[in-house]
């Protein structure tokens, strides 16, 4: 049962899965990696994005397009959320750690339960031409939905990498992650820059949410397992590196896929969390960290 060919197939599928994991982690990479906000509500917002996509696409709109349509709304939501976080915690300073974490943990639970109360605990799916069929090359089959996630993830990473290295605002976001007071001395307002970055992070999460429901059925409690996957990818990448996020996602995807193939599906949930613990123990600054 343990053949090299199977292993190769698992690795190939892992690459597709890994790109998808990178896509769902990009927002966290900005919010937690660059801005240092303990954004544990990220996976809950991801699932919320999936349900919003479900609602819009039930009108007959393509799920990916629905995700794009949601981005401006999520952008404003993210800006509002950061503003609120800043005013209530960062500005007051003392003991922001415990209360900030409690705040986002509470938000995550509120979103999860609200989704259960509105949609019930049943799994939801979306329909589109590319969901359900696969591309066959020789003996290998690639589901189009995974290829779609793969392509969007690559594109997102590319766009964000260019944005952070070439544009003024993007560079300012990187700068605020490195040294906030220095940025203030340069005459830029760090709060505004962070607000913008948080908006971008949340907007990216809307598109990632659309990918999540394209890749498979979604249920409200799904955010719990994605705490592991997203934080694993971000820590593995070294906080705040976009291309690192892509590589880390690939590593997680391949490892998870190989474990799934060799040990069975019941062990899969532990992979991301286990990898996360190993990283925290051995190299907390991540693979590409300074």
């Amino acid at each position, binding site marked *: 049962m343990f053949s090299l060919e199977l292993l190769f197939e698992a690795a190939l599928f892992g690459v597709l899965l890994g790109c998808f994991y990178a896509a769902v982690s990009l927002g966290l990479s900005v919010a937690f990696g660059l801005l240092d906000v303990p954004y544990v509500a990220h996976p809950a917002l991801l699932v919320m994005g999936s349900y919003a996509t479900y609602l819009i696409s039930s009108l007959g709109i393509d799920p990916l397009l629905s995700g794009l349509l949601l981005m401006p709304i999520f952008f404003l939501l993210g800006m509002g959320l950061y503003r609120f976080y800043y005013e209530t915690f960062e500005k007051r300073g003392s003991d922001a*750690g415990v209360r900030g*974490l409690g705040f986002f943990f509470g938000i995550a639970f509120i979103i999860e*339960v609200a989704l259960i109360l509105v949609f019930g605990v049943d799994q939801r799916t979306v329909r589109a031409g590319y969901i359900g069929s696969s591309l066959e090359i020789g003996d290998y089959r690639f589901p189009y939905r995974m290829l779609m996630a793969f392509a969007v993830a690559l594109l997102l990473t590319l766009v964000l990498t260019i944005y952070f290295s070439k544009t003024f605002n993007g560079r300012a976001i990187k700068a605020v992650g490195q040294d906030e007071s220095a940025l203030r001395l340069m005459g830029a307002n760090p709060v505004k820059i962070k607000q913008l970055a948080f908006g971008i992070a949340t907007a990216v999460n809307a598109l990632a949410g659309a990918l999540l429901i394209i890749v498979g059925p979604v249920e409200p409690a799904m955010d719990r397992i994605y705490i592991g996957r997203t934080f694993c990818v971000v820590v593995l990448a070294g906080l705040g590196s976009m291309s690192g996020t892509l590589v880390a996602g690939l590593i997680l995807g391949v490892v998870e896929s190989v474990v799934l193939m060799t040990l069975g599906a019941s062990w899969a949930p*532990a992979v991301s969390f286990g990898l996360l613990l190993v990283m925290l123990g051995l190299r*907390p600054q991540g693979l590409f960290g300074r």
Partner: protein
Amino acid sequence: MKFWIICLALVLGSLGLSLSGINEYVFFAGFVILQFVVLATAWNILGGYAGYVNFGVPAFVAVGGYTAVVLFKSIQAPILVQILGGGILAGVLGLAVGLLTLKLRGIFFSIATVAVVFILETVVMNWRYVGGATGLQLTRPADLAFFDSYTRMLFFVMAVLAIGSVIIARYIQNSFLGRGLRAVRDSEEAAECSGVPTLRIKLIACVVSGALMGVAGAPMPMYLSYIEPTATFNLSYSISALAMPIIGGTSHWMGPVIGALLLGTLQQIVTVTVSNELNVLVVGLLLVFFVVAAPDGVLGLVKKWKQSSK
């Protein structure tokens, strides 16, 4: 002195209550509320005093519970041995998580504790001896000492555990440990520079906090006559154990007790009258409300009210 008299009175009171003839349901619900007193108090030792947020409460509860199950299934150990065993193993887990992440920033500790929940859940799911994913039915032993029912005895045991954990939390708060932990919370660098052995006291707090959570979880299988991974490893434990001290007030040992009694009772009412989902929603909303509007909890509000009325 006054504190010890109250403790003794509470122990005797709960003993009297569990021997009296009132409705069985009181003990069934009371057990859960008292369990939350232990969990909230345990959480606060690390979260409230030192500022390290444990999201992985169900992991420690489950280590207690599953240790109890293994001890019961293999050697028919009595409930007190189960509790002791659960506490020790959960303390060891606390030490392991602490050693791994307490050198890092607080959020990494929090994330690591979530990770432990899912890893242990996966292990238990694949562990046949304790029932795997389907769970395990347990037959309670007949041994009741002089109590009318097993639930009544467990209520009394949990009452003693709750009082015991409050005594421990109070001792820690007033000893060099508590002062050191508060220094860590306010500024870790400053504490280290002033000669506080920060890592060591954080580890001690982590072990004590974890062990108490294990102790709280150990009687669970006997209480339900059943154990099952999905419910045992439910993150709802985390949000309750975190919300209760924050709602009560994290700086004093009384805070978690007040929070657990208030929120625990409210949870029982909401769960029975409406639904369990709404119960989690209420906890989440109250938590967010308190961290935003009343960061020092009920204790802070009372203090403010006393000052303004003077």
